C-alpha cells in the first residue's frame, strides 16, 4: 500500500484526539487495487455460478438454499428420528436424540442417507458405536431403527394426524 496525502496539510500523520477524523488517506497503488478488484470478480463469478448451477458440494460456493424447497400446502411434513433398544431393556424400542452429541451425526445428515442406510442397514451399527464412545456411562444400544413421522398438513395447517414408518433396522450381532 502506498501512502498518499489526501489533505495536503501535513507531511506526517499527526497525533489526533478520539473522534477527530484525519484528512490523510492511505491510498492503494495500482497493483494493490488490481488484485483486490480481481478477487471480487472471481468471488462474484464463483458465488453466482454456485447459485445458478452448483449444489451443496460446492461449499462455500454452494447455493444459499436455506428453506428454499417448496412444501405442498396440503400433504405431509416428514420428520426423521431414531429409536433404540438398550442392553437394559432389550425388548423395548424407545426414541433417542438424533444429535451430534449422542451419535456424532445430526438428523439432516441421517435423513440425507436413507437410500444408503436401507441398502446397508449395518451402517446404523456405527451410530451405536459412536454413541458408546460419546456416552460411555449410558446403557449400550443393542438395536437401532430409523423411523419417519409423517405429520399431515391440510391447507398449511397440521391436522394432528401423524403416520410413522420404520425405514431401516439394525440389531447387534
Amino acid at each position, binding site marked *: 500500500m502506498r501512502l498518499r496525502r489526501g489533505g495536503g496539510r501535513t507531511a506526517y*500523520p499527526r497525533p489526533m484526539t478520539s473522534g477527530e477524523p484525519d484528512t490523510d488517506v492511505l*491510498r492503494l497503488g495500482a497493483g494493490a487495487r488490481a488484485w483486490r478488484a480481481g*478477487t*471480487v470478480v472471481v468471488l462474484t463469478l464463483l458465488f453466482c455460478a454456485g447459485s445458478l448451477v452448483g449444489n451443496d458440494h460446492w461449499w*462455500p460456493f454452494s*447455493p444459499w438454499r436455506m*428453506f428454499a424447497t417448496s412444501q405442498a400446502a396440503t400433504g405431509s411434513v416428514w420428520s426423521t428420528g431414531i429409536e433404540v433398544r438398550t442392553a437394559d431393556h432389550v425388548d423395548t424400542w424407545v426414541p433417542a436424540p438424533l444429535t451430534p452429541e449422542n451419535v456424532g451425526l445430526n438428523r439432516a445428515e441421517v435423513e440425507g442417507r436413507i437410500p444408503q442406510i436401507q441398502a446397508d442397514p449395518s451402517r446404523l451399527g456405527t451410530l451405536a458405536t459412536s454413541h458408546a464412545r460419546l456416552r460411555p456411562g449410558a446403557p449400550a444400544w443393542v438395536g437401532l431403527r430409523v423411523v419417519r413421522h409423517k405429520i399431515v398438513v391440510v391447507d398449511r395447517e397440521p391436522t394432528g394426524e401423524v403416520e410413522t414408518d420404520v425405514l431401516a433396522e439394525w440389531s447387534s450381532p
Partner: protein
Amino acid sequence: MSRLRDWLFAPVPLARVAVLRALVFAFVIVDVLLLHTSGWYHGEADPVWYEPLVMGQVLHLPPASVLLVEVLKWGCVVAAALAISGRAPRLLGWVVAVCWIWYQYVAFSYGKVDHDRADFVVALALLPTVGIAHLSDRRLSEAAGFALRAIQLAAVATYFLSAWAKLRFGGLEWVNSATMVRAVVRRGTPWAQWLLEIPWTLHWFQWVLMAAEITAPVIFLLSERWRRRAVAAWFAFHAMTYAAITIAFWPHLVMMLAFLPLEEYADRLRAWWARTRAGRWVGERRLSSGAAPPAASTPASRPGAGVG
C-alpha cells in the same frame, strides 16, 4: 467505471476494521466452542458417513478424526485469541481463516451443509489484507474500505442469492407453499406454535421474506441513516426467526456489522466505561502506575500503522 472503482475502494477509518476484526475473531472463538460444534462430533463418527465436498476432493482432505478436529478447534481458538490483539494481522488472520474454513468443511462433509456460513469465509479471507489497524487509528484507508465493501457485498449476496435459490429449487410457487409451516412443525419453539393455528401469518411472511431478500441490494443506495435502519430491520428479522425456530445465521450477523460505524460505537462505549466507577478506578490505577492513558496511543507512535 471510475465511479465503481471509487465505490469499491471508498476509504473508511482503520479503526472500523480494527473493531470489526476484534468482533470477528471473538465470534470465531464463541462459534467453535459453543455455537457450531457438529464438526467436533464428526471426529467420533465412522468414516463411512464421510462424503467429500469438491473442496475436499481438490485438496485431498481426509475424513475427520479426533486428532484433526481437536487441532482445528484449538487452532481456531488460539489463533483468534492472539489475533484479537491486532498483532501479526496477516499471519494470524489467515491461520484463523484456514482453521475455521477447514473446521466448517469437516462439519459439512457428512451429508449436511449449513447454508448461512459461506459469506463469513470472505470476511476471514479479506480482513487480514488491511494489515495493521489500531482501534484508535482514525486515518482513512482504501484497503480498509475495500475489505468492508467486500464483506458488505457478500452479506447482501447472501440475501439476494438465497431468494434466487428459493426460485431455483422451490419455484415460483415457493411463496404460496407451506415451507414455513414445515419449519415450525419440525423445530418450532413453544411460543411459535400459535403461528400454526393462524396459517395466513406464515403464508404472508413468505411473501415479505421473498420481497425483502430480492430487494436487499437496495441497501447500497440508501442514505447512511436508512442504511442503519435497514441493518436494524434485518437484525429484527433474524431475532424473530431465532425465537420461532431457533435458527440464527450467526456468522452472517457479524458480517452485517460491516455496514455500521463501529469505531463511533467503540468511542461511545469507551466514554461510557470511563464515566463508570469501575472505569475511573482502572484509569486512576493506570495513571498512578505510570501507564499512558489510551488516548495517547496515536498512529504516529506506531511506525507503519495502517500501511499494508
